């Protein structure tokens, strides 16, 4: 595998029973790239990013992350998951733990940091997502936007090489979307490798290096944001853009 790419996927296929969700995805990401994945619902975009950290198992093709192949070897899976942070649509914070414990749990038990180090890191990240005063509250006491920012801090606490965002703003009230997007944009500017499934065109236009358009389990079109929005090549892309940018 070449050194140049941090993620390399070749011919990734995935079935749910008889239904084929991914029909052979070839996809490469360079370190520091920010990629936005677009596509209609059911196009396989979420399934695809979930195969990258093995929340979904691919049944054909190859996935390499940071030079490690993602296969049935649990050590490889563990190694890859350490390097990939993930943010979910529904936040998925642990409701029985405080914000601080949510963030420090994995660094302490997976990275084996001591508690003071993990807590210092957590507080630094909470500053960064602008809610340090919520450290000792429980997720249920926070607003949706605050919860999602905690989820971002929790993923970053593992110091991952790559961040995956699976529709991070889709479950938020409109007035809270902005606060989460600001955090994501800041993160993109730090040089983090990001793959985001999102419908936020603003985010795509401002920080994406590349837009990848999915439909029917395939990558239909890939381009820079500028070209993608102003000069889509494929009919399906044009149709999709006309529907979301009316």
């Amino acid at each position: 595998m070449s050194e140049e790419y941090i993620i390399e996927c070749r011919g990734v296929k995935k079935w749910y029973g008889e239904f084929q969700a991914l029909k052979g995805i070839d996809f490469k990401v360079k370190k520091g790239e920010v990629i936005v994945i677009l596509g209609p619902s059911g196009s396989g975009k979420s399934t695809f990013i979930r195969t990258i950290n093995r929340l979904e198992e691919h049944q054909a093709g190859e996935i390499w992350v940071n030079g490690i192949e993602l296969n049935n070897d649990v050590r490889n899976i563990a190694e890859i998951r350490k390097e990939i942070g993930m943010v979910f649509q529904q936040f998925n914070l642990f409701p029985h733990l405080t914000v601080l414990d949510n963030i420090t749990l994995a660094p302490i038990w997976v990275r084996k940091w001591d508690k003071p180090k993990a807590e210092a890191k957590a507080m630094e990240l909470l500053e960064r997502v602008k809610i340090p005063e919520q450290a000792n509250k429980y997720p249920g006491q926070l607003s949706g936007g605050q919860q999602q920012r905690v989820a971002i801090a929790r993923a970053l606490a593992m110091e991952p090489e790559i961040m995956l965002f699976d529709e991070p703003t889709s479950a938020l009230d409109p007035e809270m979307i902005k606060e989460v997007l600001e955090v994501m944009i800041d993160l993109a500017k730090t040089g983090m490798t990001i793959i985001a499934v999102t419908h936020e065109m603003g985010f795509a236009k401002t920080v994406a290096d590349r837009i990848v358009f999915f439909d029917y389990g395939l990558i239909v079109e890939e381009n820079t944001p500028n070209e993608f929005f102003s000069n889509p090549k494929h009919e399906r892309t044009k149709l999709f853009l006309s529907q979301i940018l009316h």
Partner: protein
Amino acid sequence: MTTATDVSTVYEAPPRTEIGVLGWLKHNLFGSWIDAILTFLSLFILYIVLVPSVRWAVTEANWRAITTNVLILIHGPYPQDQDWRVFTSIAVIVLMGIISLFVYRSSNKKLRQIMTIVWVVSPIPIWYFLAGFAGSSLLPQVEYSKWGGLLLTFVLAIFGIVASFPIGVLLALGRQSNMPIIKWISTLYIEVVRGVPFITVLFMAQVMLPLVLPADVRIPGMFRAMVGTALFSAAYLAENVRGGLQAIPRGQYEAADALGLSTFQQMYFIILPQALRTVIPPLVGQFIGLFKDTSLVAIVGLLDFLKVSQSILSQAGFLGAQKEVYIFDALIYFIFSFAMSAASLRLEKNLGVGQR
């Protein structure tokens, strides 16, 4: 005039009839004509039941059946010259309980952890203190067949609860497992045990076990009942815990996976704490049931609390004292069951902090 800025800060007081004693009476007892009639009817029924009961308890009942047999009720045939050991144990446990009330309310985490460890470890020295040692003059051995009364009831119930808990959790996890063999074995165990009456399990433990074991190995009946109780209860507990596991959204597993937690860490830190919290009410219900079901061991010849109280009825002076004895028994079972229930409510409240 009220302006827009006032609206958020100005509140009117609710009407007098809606709050306080008056409000409570209005809402709960005299909400409508039918409510009022039901209230008076209930009071009347309470009156015709309670007054004769209290009169009987105070004037007619022969409570000497209980008072002269207190020692037997507490420890059954445990030798009387050694029963200071039983009372010392009770005193130690009560003392620990009182200390706990303060410790668990304090904010000192270290102290709370020490207290928990003391609770977990204490049954072992207490056990040896009660059982004694062969040839010792200070603590001579007391045979297990001599343990009876409330002492035996508590030994069975506490061991049943403590031992069935981990077994039940493991069975529940086993039944959820992706590994077919583990899943089948857990499912088979749960379904078979739930398919037979508790009495059957006790008989099997008493009658079948000696057939399987070598002839010179003799396990005291109390041990066999303890193991039977724990294994029986574990199957029910497993199903309760499984209910809790199913209530955990998939996202919790995914978040733990994505963070790189191992399967064990995921279960221990994320899934089980949430699953067990949601099933505290059915678990406590089951433990209360187990506590009362220990009275069935009388059938296999053990002298538990209910059995020794029945033996009072054959004493010359108390031949007709069924009412007194059984009402007293019911009261004792009720007190401890209610205490468990109340403790669980407290636990739920304490654990519920910040729950979504």
